[in-house]
């Protein structure tokens, strides 16, 4: 990510708390994410003024108000587009996008996939609570098929997106998933995202305790978690279960993955393989049911960022600078077929 212009005195989480009173429902998962992010920020070693949080609209999108950095609470779905303009013209900044499952995947879907395709240098945090929180509980593009909500009393008729599959289909270079309640893991993912050059797409499972409470209980509850949550560690065999007795394997000849008892031929995780087919297969392990849900960094590969290429084109062009801006302008105005009247 953009390197700091100057190295500041060590900051603390407190330095990243704004003076605004936080206004989420008591118990909302957003609080935990906010705390985790504020706690992580000092690690960046970037002066506050060089950090910008841009969000859309939604409960999640209130986020920037609570960060004592630069920030913009923009309009619904457009944060990636706005952030693209900022990041492209200000490579010295560290630009973060905070969005929700409706903001990013419903109204903002097009901007999201294009930002990922371009590999704009944005760290995109998608708070996925599988519901529209701010508008009081309609289903979202990540809600389970058949979900009964205010707008779908007979159950929703459309199958959800798998946000990671969608991102991978859109050529994302960094794709990860984490959980609001697991601060340590969340911060480890933020760390990896921050280090990634280009778009980093991070899905954060977030509990909306008012309109979709317990959506992720299966992988949060101490009793069930271990049997359903799969922690991906770079270079490590993918095993899970109370005693790591289960493993993710790659059946001979198959393109998908399977979960089996016994960690013998557990697949070794490597987020850096260039072919997205691997990360894609991983992303298919969990659907709406969360039965076997990998978290961690699915994919982390190098590809020149949009910002980088645009900057290079500017630098190359500026090599042709042959005078003061005013002089160059005069030259430009006077180019082409001109004639003079005395």
């Amino acid at each position, binding site marked *: 990510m953009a390197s700091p212009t100057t190295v500041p005195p060590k900051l603390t989480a407190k330095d990243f708390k704004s003076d605004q009173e936080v206004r989420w429902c008591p118990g909302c998962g957003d609080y935990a994410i906010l705390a985790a992010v504020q706690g992580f920020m000092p690690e960046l070693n970037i002066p506050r003024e060089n950090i910008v949080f841009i969000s859309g609209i939604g409960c999640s999108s209130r986020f920037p108000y609570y960060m004592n950095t630069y920030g913009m609470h923009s309009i619904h779905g457009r944060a990636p587009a706005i952030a693209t303009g*900022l990041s492209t013209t200000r490579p010295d900044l560290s630009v973060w996008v905070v969005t929700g499952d409706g903001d990013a995947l419903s109204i903002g879907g097009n901007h999201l996939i294009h930002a990922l395709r371009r590999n704009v240098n944005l760290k995109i945090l998608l708070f996925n609570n599988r519901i529209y929180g701010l508008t009081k509980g309609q289903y979202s593009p990540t809600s389970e098929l058949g979900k009964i909500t205010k707008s779908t009393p007979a159950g929703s008729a459309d199958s959800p997106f798998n946000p990671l599959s969608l991102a991978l289909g859109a050529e994302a270079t960094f794709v990860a998933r984490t959980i609001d309640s697991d601060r340590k893991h969340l911060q480890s993912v933020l760390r990896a995202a921050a280090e990634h050059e280009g778009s980093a797409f991070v899905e954060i499972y977030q509990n909306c305790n008012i309109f979709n409470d317990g959506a992720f209980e299966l992988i949060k509850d101490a009793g069930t978690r271990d049997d359903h949550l799969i922690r991906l560690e770079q270079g490590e065999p993918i095993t899970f279960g109370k005693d790591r007795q289960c493993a993710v394997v790659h059946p001979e000849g198959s393109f998908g993955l399977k979960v089996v008892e016994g960690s013998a031929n557990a697949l070794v995780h490597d987020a850096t393989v260039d072919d997205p087919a691997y990360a894609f297969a991983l992303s298919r392990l969990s659907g709406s049911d969360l039965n076997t849900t990998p978290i961690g960094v699915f994919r982390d590969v190098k590809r020149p960022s949009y910002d980088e290429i645009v900057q290079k084109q500017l630098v190359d062009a500026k090599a*042709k600078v042959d005078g003061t*801006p005013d002089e160059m302008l005069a030259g430009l105005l006077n180019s082409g077929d001109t004639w003079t009247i005395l």
Partner: protein
Amino acid sequence: MAEVDVPAKRVEQLDRVVIRFAGDSGDGMQLTGDRFTSETAQLGNDISTLPNFPAEIRAPAGTLPGVSSFQVHFADYDILTPGDAPNVLVAMNPAALKANLADLPPGADIIVNTDEFTKRNLAKVGYAVNPLEDDSLDGYVVHPVALTSMTIGALADLNVPKKDAERAKNMFALGLLSWMYSRPYESTLRFLERKFAKRPELVAANQAAFRAGWSFGETTETFSIRYEVKPARMLPGTYRNITGNAALALGLVAASVRSKLPLFLGAYPITPASDILHELSKHKRFGITTMQAEDEIAAVGAALGAAYGGALGVTTTSGPGVALKGETISLAIALELPLVIVDVQRAGPSTGMPTKTEQADLNMALFGRHGEAPLAVIAPKSPSDCFHAALEAARIALTYRTPVILLSDNYVANGSEPWLLPQVAELPDLSVEFAREPNGEDGRFLPYLRDPETLARPWAVPGTAGLEHRIGGLEKADKTGDISYDPANHDFMVRMRAERIEAIPVPDVEVEDPDENARILVLGWGSTYGPIGAACRALRQRGLPIAQAHLRHLNPLPANLGEVLAGYDKVVVPEMNLGQLAHVIRARYLIDAVSFNQVSGLPFTAATLENMLEDVVKNG
């Protein structure tokens, strides 16, 4: 050996000529017209041009929808329009003849490429009999010329492929016309060298075709007269012929240079605005970044994001694009950040007629957003004026921290005229002050504390230590910018947003009424300046007094406008819409402004306006 003796040709002086080159999309008429225009420019005539593209990329050859034309008007005095009716039509095929005949005045010259008047081609456009053979063209002076075959003949010993030889026929035509109107052609020969640098044989072929056309005029009987149009009396200085889109792009470059801010253009291609994107993308060495966004919403969003970061944020589009950008423009209004939105208007509603002109986006520019969402609106009056209008749009946006909509249209965007190049040093200094220090007590930064002069809020860009702050689309408390649901604050902020735009100082509107005896005022805006001006002149020359006022600033309106309008018995407002400016004038000043509307996709002709105005002047 006896020389061929060339009959000496009579040379006639003309004060003005309108020529229209018309042919198939594939015949290179735009290029031919461009070249003739340059030659004419060199000679110092005043010029105005109007291209006319088919809507399709390339409709089937020889069909009416496939006809492409270029009209050039040049004179020994200053002119205001590309001319109502061509004195000369160059018709490269039957379709070109049929599509343009109706526009010709009786007695006009028609130069036709007889080679193309085959049964098949005639049939394609529904000519039962060959119009060159019946009496249907009796009212005109027809010059039948076997353009294609003569061109091929002329290139016989250059052994270029027949296809290329045939292609050169437009240069033959150009040579002929250049001879007829005594144009200097050096620049054209040089141009051909540049254009075909990679294929010398084509340079030779096209130059030969040009020369062949020239000497054909000189030698054959078909053309007994040769014309001259003396240079126009124009202000001294260096000139360049320029289209509105090119001038607008250069104006934005100038705004970037003069404001010392990097220019960021977020754009999504759309006719007729795309050329601005194309032009600006060539000037990266000025530190300009152009981004072809995924759609218009992303384009304006990215421009706004760049503006937030301290760039000169611009987005260029046409009507349908502005319709999509409304919500984001509304955000820019709430954020009070500088932003320039260029709308090159085309005929609507919906997709309408993308290659035709119209002025029907004024309502949308003024009123097309939810809530009370005021912004500044300005419009250029001619192709070269697009340069200055772009600078003015940037000046207002940067000084007053507001979105500005610049309403160009297809007529000025693609039309061209000579442009007296400005001295860079004399261009306005647009440099801005970013906020650097906290502006509140105890070192607090108040992002919505206004400059009492401009009512603009501080522009504190990310990267400025100590000014970290958050902004957004929710209503903001005065000064602090914190989210506020306080009723009194909202009422205050709504009025403040209106007031700060209303308070932008704009120059008084000037009235052109040479004899100061007019009782009728014609009020226009944007691209109608030329035809209105020409009509007014014609009336005055005929002793009918009439005053003309033209608006560059549509919001806020000039402070003196009400007073000016009140000074006349009648105010007439010609518009290429159903009366959008007239509506505003009536509401604002309660005067019975009369609308005159033409919404045909074509600019007004001077004649149309002259007739209408004559009627008003005479019958009130």
